[in-house]
């Protein structure tokens, strides 16, 4: 393995400015958004075309360097980090390639972020119907690779339901179209498209994605409510999700996150929790659902709010605005266990003298995406607290949203067979075993 030689060869392929190796150049790639433990990649490449990307693999193989694809680095489990391998920064492959208004689909490159994508769609009267919780800077490729759920999931499901077709590049350099562009491919042979969803870059690198899109809803309205007992809020959110057709998001946050909203000059004052729900659809049906919703949470004094809370929905800017460093874990949790999960966070935080925050978005009638945050303040107990929390959440039936480099053991505990299956099929796709094999090692 010679990094110098690999560097020279990669510069020949990607050009000088697109191959990084100096400490200050690769600094931002040594961490993801929330991680504290650095992993130093040997090299970073930033392809400008898929053709360049396909030439990467022979070099990586020759020099025995593993390859890890990376978008904007919003996976909190160190999924976009690499120890001594090559990171492929996909953010320069960020084009929307084709929007088909008749077929309601858009084909994009993996590095396009949600903000640009929704801009492209909005200009034609469409929306994606699904957005990540962390940030609008997250890329679509990363969202697919981590089985993304988020705003809109309660209506449209996870990215699993939105992805129609993918084009991937394998470590032998070949390019494969996994699905069909115009019609679901569920009953036409093995479903390779959805096999790539949540595969975290271990099977192939996504180079193109065709997604379903939806006509932009005629109107949207936001309703907020506050409550002191999390169980009450969780039950109400569930009840509403079962009986409305325009609910696109419903999330709750605890007091500490609410504080941050306040610093953005929003007038919410409550000791406990804030719940926000958004209805989207035709005016007639949104109005019907809004009055139903208000009736269901009547005792919590619901109030209509403008778009200011909605516009502050992305969690990363909220967390960043608070004390740092933080420790962030995201899990999907059965809806009926969500309140218990919150109490675990509170108990464990108190035990170790750590402040915490809780955020939870309902993603289906039966599950939530819950984000647990510890503010460390120099405490050495954060890692112990995290481990305890992990144990508690897993025993409640929670699953980490991604394995990355850090949560493979938790993933194995939560869904052992799935990891075994992924290991089994890896060699079929990644014959050279180059694509982040360390993510599957326990």
């Amino acid at each position, binding site marked *: 393995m010679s990094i110098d030689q690999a560097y020279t060869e990669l510069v020949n392929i990607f050009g000088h400015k697109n191959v990084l190796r100096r400490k200050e150049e690769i600094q931002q790639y040594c961490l993801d958004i929330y991680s504290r433990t650095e992993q130093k990649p040997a090299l970073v490449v930033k392809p400008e075309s898929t053709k360049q990307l396909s030439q990467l693999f022979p070099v990586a193989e020759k020099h025995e360097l593993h390859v890890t694809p990376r978008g904007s680095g919003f996976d909190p489990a160190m999924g976009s980090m690499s120890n001594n391998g090559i990171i492929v920064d996909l953010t320069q492959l960020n084009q929307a390639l084709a929007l088909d208004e008749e077929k309601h689909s858009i084909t994009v490159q993996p590095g396009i972020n949600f903000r640009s994508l929704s801009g492209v769609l909005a200009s034609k009267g469409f929306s994606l119907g699904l957005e990540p919780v962390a940030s609008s800077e997250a890329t679509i490729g990363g969202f697919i690779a981590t089985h993304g759920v988020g705003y809109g999931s309660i209506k449209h499901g996870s990215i699993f339901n939105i992805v129609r077709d993918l084009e991937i590049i394998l470590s032998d350099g070949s390019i494969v179209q996994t699905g*069909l562009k115009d019609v679901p491919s569920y009953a036409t042979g*093995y479903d390779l498209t959805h096999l790539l969803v949540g595969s975290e870059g271990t099977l192939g690198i996504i180079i193109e994605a065709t997604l379903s899109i939806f006509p932009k809803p005629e109107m949207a309205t936001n309703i907020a409510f506050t409550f002191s007992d999390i169980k009450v809020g969780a039950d109400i959110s569930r009840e509403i999700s079962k009986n409305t057709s325009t609910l696109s998001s419903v999330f709750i946050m605890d007091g500490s996150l609410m504080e941050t909203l306040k610093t953005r000059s929003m007038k919410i004052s409550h000791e406990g929790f804030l719940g926000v729900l958004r209805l989207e*659809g035709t005016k007639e049906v949104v109005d019907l659902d809004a009055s139903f919703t208000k009736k269901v949470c009547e005792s919590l004094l619901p109030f209509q709010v403008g778009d200011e809370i909605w516009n502050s929905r992305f969690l990363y800017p909220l967390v960043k605005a608070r004390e740092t460093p933080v420790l962030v874990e995201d899990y999907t949790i059965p809806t009926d266990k969500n309140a218990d999960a919150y109490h675990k966070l509170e108990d464990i935080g108190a035990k170790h003298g750590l402040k915490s925050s809780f955020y939870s978005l309902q993603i289906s009638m039966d599950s939530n995406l819950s984000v647990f945050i510890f503010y460390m303040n120099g405490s050495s107990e954060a890692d112990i607290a995290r481990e305890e929390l992990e144990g508690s959440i897993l025993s409640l039936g929670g699953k980490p949203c991604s394995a990355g480099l850090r949560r493979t053991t938790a993933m194995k505990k939560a869904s052992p067979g799935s990891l075994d299956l992924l290991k089994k099929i890896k060699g079929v796709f990644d014959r050279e075993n180059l694509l982040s094999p360390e993510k599957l090692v326990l």
Partner: protein
Amino acid sequence: MSTTLFDSLVGIVGEKNVSNREMDLICYSSDIAPLPETIISTYGIKMPSVVVRPQNPDQISAILKLANEKGVPVTPRAGASSAMGGCLPIDGGIVLDMTSMDSIISIDEEGMKVTAQAGVTFQKLLRELEKRNVKLGTYPTSSPSATIGGYISNGGCAGIGAPKYGPISSQILQLEVVLPDGEILSVDSPRSSLLVGAEGTLGVITQVVLRIYPIPESFVALAYGFDNLTLACEGLIKLLESGIMPNSLTFMDKCFLETICELGLEFPKHEIVFCLTLEGRKQLVAAQEKAIDKIFSGGKKLDLAFAMEEWERKYKTELFIKRAGPTIILVEANVPIIKLKEAVNSLREVNEKLGLKASFYGIMGHGGSMLTMPIVLTDERMEEDYFNTLLSTLKMMSIIISAGGVIYTVGLHNCIFMGLIHNEKKIEIMKSLKKKFDSYGILNPGKLTECRMAWLKSLIK
């Protein structure tokens, strides 16, 4: 002396769960669309040598290990309600009848999920769920015989509930599967998607955890008749654009309606009839009905009583037509709704040339697609006629593919179209997956990735 296959199987599942009686073997050698002798011999389809009814995954694991050891093919089978030949034991060997594994293990209303063995029929499961005031999202029109394992294995992306709740794939929380080498795995979403539509070639699904949903406050069945295919298809496109997702939508064409009427049922006479159902809160359903009346204003709203009757016999209509047969040959194609008109028109054109009469029945799927089923009546006892009809239906499928549709389940008959739909590299990966899972090729051989019918291609050009 080595023990015979039969005795070894008796050792695994007990005497009463193994049979090699001729009558059983005959019954287990076809699905709902029986094939005539000539086809059976031209296709090289063998009779199974033994039928086994396993009771649990450990038994299946032992059977598969035994099959690997002895080099005997194993073909999983449940309700056999697909007409694509996917459960035919074409190389003989063991038929694995999954229908004994039909227990409902738990219904968790709080967690909103049901755990059941894969051999349970949808009808049984739905009845049990209904007692607790919950339901499944998506289920097939063949619910009385179709099992959850079978539907999942066959892709499950069209059916009742599919437009609203999505493909069955997105309702699976967990699958337990026995792999061809006997390993038992419990796989959750999204990895479970590999087993969806794998048609029993990568593993045998033994247990499923599915999402369940509350039974909505209100339900309505509606029907609309159109005297013109164009107006009907335009209406469907408008429905898609509106974002209103019916719980179910079926369509029948004139030929289908006439054939049904000849059998003595009273059906309205129109070029196209849509039957659909809506569910939700009372006010919402009322608002949606009003909106749909407007969307389908190119047609005539039909009697609500007829719509309700049609809903009541939802499991029967599609196959009622079989009585006019006695045999039917079904083409099952998934067609994007924006291409539906084109597909139906080009089929009709060709059928006219061929002197073929096809009845169209369709059920809306997920993602703007329509499972479109031209049904041709024939008689499997008239062998030459049957063979010609079969060739014509294969030709119909290739026309649908040129018009933008795809096959719906591969099975035995649709293998020849894989190359028309998928690129070479994708097929190569499918084959490698099969090889990786089933190195000796014992599980459901001759299907999906393994086409034995290539010679048919030249006949349908």
